[in-house]
C-alpha cells in the first residue's frame, strides 16, 4: 500500500526510469538474440559499458577532456569578459545600442560556425583556434542577455530608489544588478551550448586530440562503442552544465522561479 | 417549492500530489426553483467555484448527486452555461467568434450562428464591436461577451462565478442592472456566486450563506424586496438591514478560521 502510494506520487520519475531501462534492455536483447549486431554499423549497451569502463581507466580520455576544456574555458572566459560589458553599455547608452544592434543581431542570427575552417587555418589546430571559435559563438548570448537585462529593469523601481534618496551606486547595486543577473546567467546557459558546438566542430575539423577528435576518430576506425562513450560523456557534461546554470539561475533569482520554460 | 435544481449531500475532496487532501465540499445540499435568482456567498476557498463546476459537469463529486429538472447531471450539457470571473474569452477570436463558440460546438450552421450572435451582441450592448479582439475591450465589455456567449446556446440555467469581481465599481453597478433586466426578460434560472453581500442582496430572490471549508449551507435568506429593483432601492433602510443580517451570518464564518 505504501509502495503503491509512493509510486503514484513519483509516477513521473518512475515512468522515466522504467522507460530508460526498458529501452536499454530491449536494445541489448534484440541485438543479442534477434538481429546479430554488425559491429561496424551498430553496437549494444553491454559493449558500450565495457568500452566505458576501459576508457575511464585510460589516460587518453582524461587527456582529451583536459585539452577540450582548456580551449573551452579560454574562449568562454573571453566571451564573458567582452560580452557582458558590451551588453551593459548597449543597455545604458541609447546611441551605442542603435549603432551596434543591427550589426550584432545579424551576427547572432548567423551560423558563425561557418567561419570554423578559416579560424582553424588562421589560428591553428591548437588551443587558440578552438578558443577563438568558442569565443565567437559564445559572446553573443552574453551581449544580448546583458542588454535585455538592463532594458528590462523596471523604471518604477528606479524611481522608488531615487525617491528614497538613493544614489547612482544604489541604483546599480539594488536595482539594475539584481534584475540583470538572471538574464546573464540565462545567457551563460545558451553560451555553454554554443561554445560546446564550437569545440566539437573545431575538433572535428582539424585536431589531433580532444573529445571531439576522439569521437571522430572512433567513427573513422569503426570503433562504435568508443564513439558512443564519447557522445555519452559529452552529453553528460552538457546536461550537467545546463542544470548547474538552472540551479544558479534559481539561486540568484528565486523570485522568478521557473516562469520561463525556455 | 418544486425544485428545478436539486443537490443532495454533495461532497468533494481534492487529492493533490504533495499536499494534504482538501475537502472542498461536505454534504452540501440545495434546491432552486425554476426561474429563481439565487446567490451564494461564503468565505473564499469554501468550495463555491467547485460546486458550480460540478453543476456545470466539469468535475464529478466524490459523493452525492445533482439533478436538473429530474435528470441527474453527469457531464456538460446545453441546458447549463457558465459566466467565468476571468472572462475566459479566447484571445485569438473576435467578439462574434467568441459568442459563437457554444453554437459552433453544437454544430449549428455558420449563417444561423452569425444571426444569433448578432442578436446577443445587441442584447448586451456591444453592437459595433463585433470584430474586436478581447485585448481591445475593457473589462466590462469582456464580461458582456462572456454573458452573450453563455446566453447564445439558450441555456435554462445560468451559472455565474463572481462574474463582476474583476470590474471597477461603476462598471459593476451598471452590469448588475443590465443583468437584472436580461434576467427579467429571459427568465433564466440563475445561480450567482459573489463575494459582495450588497450584490447578492440586490440581485437575488434568495441568498445562500456557506460555511468555511468544507463548505456546507449555513443559512438561507429570502430577499423579499419588490421587483423590478433599481439602484435607489439600495439606499433604503430595509436593504441595509438585509445586508447587515447577511453580514452577521457570514462574519462568524470569516472569523472562525482566523
Amino acid at each position: 500500500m505504501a509502495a503503491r502510494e509512493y509510486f503514484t506520487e513519483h509516477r513521473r520519475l518512475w515512468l522515466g526510469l522504467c522507460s530508460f531501462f526498458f529501452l536499454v534492455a530491449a536494445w541489448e536483447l534484440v541485438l543479442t538474440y534477434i538481429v546479430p549486431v554488425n559491429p561496424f554499423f551498430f553496437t549494444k549497451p553491454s559493449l558500450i559499458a565495457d568500452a566505458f569502463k576501459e576508457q575511464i581507466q585510460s589516460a587518453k580520455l582524461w587527456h582529451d577532456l583536459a585539452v577540450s576544456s582548456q580551449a573551452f574555458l579560454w574562449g568562454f572566459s573571453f566571451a564573458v569578459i567582452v560580452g557582458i560589458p558590451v551588453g551593459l553599455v548597449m543597455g545604458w547608452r541609447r546611441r551605442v545600442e542603435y549603432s551596434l544592434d543591427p550589426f550584432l543581431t545579424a551576427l547572432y542570427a548567423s551560423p558563425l560556425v561557418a567561419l570554423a575552417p578559416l579560424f582553424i587555418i588562421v589560428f591553428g589546430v591548437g588551443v587558440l583556434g578552438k578558443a577563438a571559435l568558442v569565443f565567437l559563438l559564445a559572446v553573443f548570448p552574453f551581449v544580448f542577455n546583458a542588454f535585455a537585462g538592463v532594458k528590462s529593469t523596471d523604471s518604477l523601481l528606479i524611481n522608488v530608489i531615487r525617491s528614497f534618496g538613493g544614489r547612482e551606486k544604489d541604483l546599480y547595486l539594488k536595482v539594475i544588478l539584481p534584475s540583470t543577473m538572471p538574464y546573464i546567467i540565462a545567457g551563460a546557459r545558451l553560451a555553454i551550448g554554443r561554445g560546446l558546438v564550437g569545440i566539437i566542430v573545431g575538433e572535428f575539423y582539424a585536431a589531433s586530440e580532444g573529445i571531439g577528435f576522439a569521437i571522430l576518430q572512433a567513427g573513422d576506425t569503426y570503433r562504435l562503442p568508443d564513439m558512443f562513450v564519447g557522445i555519452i560523456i559529452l552529453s553528460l557534461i552538457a546536461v550537467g552544465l545546463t542544470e548547474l546554470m538552472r540551479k544558479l539561475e534559481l539561486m540568484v533569482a528565486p523570485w522568478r522561479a521557473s516562469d520561463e520554460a525556455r | 417549492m418544486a425544485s428545478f435544481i436539486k443537490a443532495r449531500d454533495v461532497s468533494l475532496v481534492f487529492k493533490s500530489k504533495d499536499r494534504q487532501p482538501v475537502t472542498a465540499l461536505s454534504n452540501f445540499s440545495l434546491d432552486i426553483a425554476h426561474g429563481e435568482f439565487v446567490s451564494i456567498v461564503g468565505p473564499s476557498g469554501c468550495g463555491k467555484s467547485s460546486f458550480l463546476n460540478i453543476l456545470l459537469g466539469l468535475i464529478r463529486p466524490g459523493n452525492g448527486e445533482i439533478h436538473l429538472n429530474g435528470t441527474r447531471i453527469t457531464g456538460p450539457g446545453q441546458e447549463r452555461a457558465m459566466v467565468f470571473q476571468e472572462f475566459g474569452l479566447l484571445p485569438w477570436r473576435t467578439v462574434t467568434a467568441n459568442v459563437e463558440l457554444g453554437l459552433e460546438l453544437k454544430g449549428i450552421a455558420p449563417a444561423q450562428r452569425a444571426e444569433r450572435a448578432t442578436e446577443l451582441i445587441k442584447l448586451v450592448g456591444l453592437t459595433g464591436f463585433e470584430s474586436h479582439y478581447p485585448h481591445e475591450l475593457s473589462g466590462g465589455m469582456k464580461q458582456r461577451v462572456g454573458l452573450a456567449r453563455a446566453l447564445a446556446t439558450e441555456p435554462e440555467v445560468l451559472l455565474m462565478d463572481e462574474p463582476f469581481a474583476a470590474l471597477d465599481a461603476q462598471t459593476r453597478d451598471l452590469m448588475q442592472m443590465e443583468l437584472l433586466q436580461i434576467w427579467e426578460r429571459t427568465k433564466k434560472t440563475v445561480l450567482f456566486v459573489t463575494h459582495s453581500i450588497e450584490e447578492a442582496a440586490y440581485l437575488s430572490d434568495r441568498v445562500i450563506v456557506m460555511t468555511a471549508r468544507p463548505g456546507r449551507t449555513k443559512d438561507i435568506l429570502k430577499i423579499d424586496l419588490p421587483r423590478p429593483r433599481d439602484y435607489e432601492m439600495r439606499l433604503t433602510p430595509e436593504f441595509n438591514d438585509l445586508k447587515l443580517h447577511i453580514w452577521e451570518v457570514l462574519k462568524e464564518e470569516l472569523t472562525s478560521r482566523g
Partner: protein
Amino acid sequence: MKLKNFYTEHESFILGTGFIVFLLILWESIPLWYTLPKGMALFFTTPSDIAAAFHRLLLNGELEKHFYVSAIAFLAGLGLSIVVGLPLGLVMGRSATLDALLDPYVTASNATPRIVFLPLLILWFGIGIWSKIAIVFVGAVFPLLINTYVGVKNVNQVLVNVVRSFGASEWQLMKIVVLPNSVPYIIAGLRLAIGRAILGVVVGEFFGSSQGLGYMIASAATNYKVDVVFVGVAIFMALSVILTLAVKQLESRLASWRPETAKTF
C-alpha cells in the same frame, strides 16, 4: 535645422547602417594604410574582393549548384522535423504518461549539442544528402518539439473549462484552444529550429558532403581562397537574417489578436 529633425527621427536607422558601412570601409581600407606581413596577407581579403568573388561564382554557375544542394538538405530536414516535432510536442503536452516516458530522452538530447552525432550519422547514412538531412533533423526537431510542448502546457485552464463546458471533445479542445494557444510558441520554436537547421547544413557539409555551400567554404579554406570563404559565410548570414525576418513577419501576421507589447518574446 531640417537635417537635424531628419536625423533625430531616423537616428536608430542612421546609426545602425552607418556603423556597418563604417566597418566595411575600414576593412576595405586596411591595405591602404597598413602593409600586411607575408604570412597574414595569405588570409586577408577585402569586401571588394569578396564581392568580385561572388560575382565570379554567380556567373560560372557554381554558386547556384551549391546553393541548390544546401537548400534541399535544409528544407527536407526542417520539413521532417516539423512533421515529427509538432505532433509529438502536442501529444506530450496532453498526455502525462507519454510525457514521463519520453522526457529523459528529450531533455538529454536537447542539452547535448546535436552536432556530436554527425560522425555517427555519416557512418549510418554515408556521405551525401541523407546524412545531412539527418543532422538537420536532429538539430531542428527539439526546439520545435519543446516549444510546442510548452505552448500546450501553458494553456489557460479557464479556457479549457470554457470549451469543455460547451461539451467539446478532446479533439475539439485541441483545435479550439490548445493549438491556437501554442501558435506563438511554435513560431518561436520555428525561429530556433531554422537556426539549428542552418547550422546542421553548414557543419554537415563540412564533413559529410562533396557539394553544397558548406563544402564550398571548407574546400576554399583549405586552398586559402579566403574571399570564397567569405562569400559562403555572407550567403549563410543573409539567409539567416532573411529567414528570421520572415518568421517574425509570420508571427505578427498570425498574432493580430495579441496586444502589441506581447508580440516578441
